[in-house]
């Protein structure tokens, strides 16, 4: 734990926690330090409570950690909520002109700073954040010059802003040197070249890197980051970016574009995905390759717009009426978003199917340091069998030709001598519909079989799933998606404590690698760790592989798992529990509400 710290920024929406935290994180990344940040926020533009946790380490970190080393409180509420969470040896930084100190836990250093005395009487109030970052920089033993370089990079076009920030930060840094005791173990440096980036940014950049040329979306948290990235970069990269009137329009436009032969993508969250579902079936029966991202959040309905959940697996599996091939896959981490989106385009085009990529709030809005080498990557672009030009002679073209693989060479509209109409009605190989006048059970079966067959070939091509951790461990934790990063650390901790467990993270949900997964889990005590109430992923394992797991660890309170939750839950399971429902219990997560309109209001209840 020596060189692994968690710094939390607490404040109201609009107080600037995120930008303050971002500057610290970028400075850390520039020192080659690894960072993972999770922002717990509310669906509010101003006010409320927002809590950003940044974990910094000289080793790779894959989650936001269990406990808080340092707290920067930007308002009194945050002081009151979170001070008790600090670990011994930690510290709390606060503006003593504005805030009253709470009762510090044993071994916690309070670091009050008189803002106006330090920054000058004419300082803008927002500069308190900058002073606090200056103090932090000193407390964690980081070079001031690195912080300065981040201000210069962030405000490159506004030299006066750079100057004001550097001045305020330096004042804080110097004040800390005189008045506070820095952390015993200063953070070091590494030589790694790291970028600090969100999952949404990597989904967007990864799509651009894979040749996405049309991106359509309707704003929805927590997927909007992809739209914002595309909006900012589309013009330079030659990507047509459209904000559409609703998610129904979004996916239909995406399909229209993909049908013409361009790589097209759309993204949303669960509610928007619900509107898209009819068109998922259209993409499948018209054999139009699209990538549709669902960044899951707390549901159902509007649910918890800014909170974490893995509740949309059932929806993805059941999206759209009918029985048809689709692919569902889930990246396992922020860096994995970058390459998973690229491979999704290949699967979509090679097999002419809709690919549903399941991300979630934690992964999409979380920020992590990712190696520059990992990002500077040229993906293999495999577009499958496509026809772009007429090469002469009679073509006798069947768009939906019944081939052994089920994949029919796809002529791009506009190509001479390859005319066809694609219909959402069932159709024959030449595209003529067999739904109204020319009904035909023989052809219907042939076409259903042809499309379904594509999944067999796809399944054979998928890279095999792998166990992480000690192969001989008798217990296997099974996950999909972003829980990978938490469970990975929990598994390491448990093994250090002598509890032998390993980890199977499943990336490909549909089609499902039944044989491989069954073989890996043979003879193991199996435990699914997932973020929903009913155990959708455990049910999926049962449905696809006939595996009824021995125990389940679930969390559905809106806040993500932390390694400590999984460690504790596994111990419960080993004592015989078959279901552990984890919860974030620190009081700081909670915001009490006034009574509802039907409730008698008494001072004693609130």
């Amino acid at each position, binding site marked *: 734990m020596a060189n692994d710290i968690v710094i939390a920024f607490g404040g109201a929406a609009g107080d600037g926690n995120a930008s303050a935290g971002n500057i610290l994180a970028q400075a850390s*990344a520039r020192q080659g330090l690894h960072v993972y940040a999770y922002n717990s926020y509310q669906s509010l533009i101003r006010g409320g409570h927002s809590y950003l946790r940044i974990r910094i380490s000289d080793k790779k970190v894959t989650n936001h950690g269990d406990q808080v080393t340092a707290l920067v409180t930007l308002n009194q509420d945050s002081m009151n909520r979170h001070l008790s969470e600090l670990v011994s040896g930690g510290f709390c930084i606060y503006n003593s002109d504005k805030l009253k100190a709470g009762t510090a836990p044993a071994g916690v250093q309070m670091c009050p700073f008189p803002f106006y005395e330090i920054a000058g009487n004419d300082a803008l109030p927002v500069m308190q954040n900058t002073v606090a970052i200056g103090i932090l920089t000193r407390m964690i033993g980081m070079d001031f010059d690195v912080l300065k370089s981040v201000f210069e990079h962030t405000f490159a076009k506004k030299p006066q802003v750079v100057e004001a920030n550097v001045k305020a930060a330096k004042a804080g840094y110097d004040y800390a040197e005189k008045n506070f005791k820095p952390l015993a173990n200063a953070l070091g440096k590494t030589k790694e*070249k790291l*970028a*600090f980036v969100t999952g949404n*940014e990597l989904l967007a950049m990864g799509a651009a*890197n*894979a*040749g996405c*040329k*049309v991106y*359509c979306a309707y704003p929805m948290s927590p997927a909007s980051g992809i739209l914002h990235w595309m909006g900012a970069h*589309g*013009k*330079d*990269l*030659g990507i*047509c970016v459209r904000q*559409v*009137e609703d998610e*129904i*329009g979004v996916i*239909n*436009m*995406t*399909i*229209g*574009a*993909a*049908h*013409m*032969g*361009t790589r*097209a993508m759309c993204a949303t969250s669960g509610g928007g995905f619900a509107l898209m579902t009819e*068109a998922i079936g*259209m993409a499948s029966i*018209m054999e139009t390759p699209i990538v549709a991202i669902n960044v899951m959040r707390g549901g159902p309905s509007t649910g918890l717009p800014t909170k974490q959940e893995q509740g949309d697996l059932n929806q993805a599996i059941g999206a759209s009426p009918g029985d048809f091939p689709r692919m569902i896959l889930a990246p396992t981490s922020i860096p994995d978003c970058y390459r998973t989106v690229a491979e999704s385009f290949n699967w979509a085009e090679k097999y002419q199917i809709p690919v549903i990529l399941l991300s979630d709030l934690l992964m999409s809005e979380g920020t992590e340091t990712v190696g*520059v080498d990992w990002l*500077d990557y*040229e*993906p293999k*672009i495999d*577009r499958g069998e496509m026809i*772009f030009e007429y090469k002469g002679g009679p073509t006798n073209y069947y768009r939906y030709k019944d081939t052994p693989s089920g994949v029919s060479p796809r002529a*791009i*509209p*506009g*190509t*001479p*001598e*390859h*005319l*066809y*109409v*694609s*219909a*959402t009605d069932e159709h024959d190989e030449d595209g*003529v*519909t067999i739904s*109204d*006048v020319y009904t035909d059970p023989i052809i219907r079966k042939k076409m259903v079989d042809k499309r379904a067959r594509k999944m067999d070939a796809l399944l054979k091509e998928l890279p095999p799933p792998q166990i992480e951790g000690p192969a001989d461990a008798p217990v296997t934790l099974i996950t999909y998606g972003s829980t990978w990063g938490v469970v990975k650390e929990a598994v390491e901790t448990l093994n250090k404590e002598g509890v032998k467990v390993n980890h199977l993270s499943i990336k490909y949900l549909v089609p499902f690698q039944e044989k491989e997964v069954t073989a890996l889990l043979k003879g193991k005590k199996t435990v699914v760790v997932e973020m929903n109430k009913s155990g959708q992923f455990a049910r999926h394992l049962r449905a696809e592989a006939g595996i009824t797991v021995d125990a389940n660890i679930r969390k559905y309170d809106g806040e993500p798992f932390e390694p400590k939750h999984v460690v504790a839950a596994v111990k419960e399971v080993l004592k015989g529990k078959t279901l552990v429902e984890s919860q974030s219990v620190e009081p700081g997560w909670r915001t009490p509400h006034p009574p509802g309109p039907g409730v008698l209001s008494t001072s004693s209840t609130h």
Partner: protein
Amino acid sequence: MPTAVAAPRDAKLYKPEVPPDWCPGCGDYGVLTVLQRACGELGLPNDQLMVVSGIGCSSNLPGFFRSYGMHSLHGRSLPVATGAKIANHEMTVIACGGDGDGYGIGQGHFIHSMRRNINLTYIVMDNEIYGLTTGQTSPTSETGMKTKSTPHGNPEGQLNPMAMALAAGCGFVARGFSGDINHLKSLYTQAIQYPGFALIDVFSPCVTFNKQNTFGWFKERVYKLEEKGHDVTDWNAAMARAKEWGAQIPIGVLYKNPNPKPSIDAADPALQGTALARQTKLGLTKEQRKKLIEEYV
């Protein structure tokens, strides 16, 4: 979009082997025949045409027209057609469907496609009834009309697509009648050549389920705007004509924006060169990637 007029082609070239499956006497036959003639008159190559429909009797049209086509979901022809146009802006894109498809379930896309001003032609075969589902009231059914779903008379108001189109900023608003195909053809050719979203609402009577708004009913009422000295560039005059319903119903071009702004596909920076769908070199260059990564370092 054809700017120079190509050599005219035979309308038969747009006729596939599969014959229409509409009821004998359906208004949609006229709509189809005229579309084939209009494309012939403009000399449009079949492989440069994309016809996109939704669902309904009239949305079966792409299956009876020789070109590339998409027979999409109910109400979704416009977003699909928009996607097609942005992916290949060099092709002529025609969207079509019925009144239920476009003005009912697809109403949101209808308004926004006009506001968005994507360069395509939208033909609505308006029969004031749901035909394929065997005769229920539609958004353009007259108030009081008895249908299977409103046996005591339609209690709801009748939608005015012409006024809506004008209000939504549509640059080309026209109305035709399937019973007057020469007149209709000129609306099509103008619409296809118009550099922006062009709407043609075509009275296309349903001979099976709409016993009220029949060919005869329309014949008695429609009059041609061009015979009444209507100024197609006058938006207010167009709005006044759009409100006419009853004894006198105008057909022809109601409005044609004399100074159209560039359509969204013409203005989009990504659509200035080779059509997106025709670009073969995909992905980022090393330099592009490096610049993007640099933002986060």
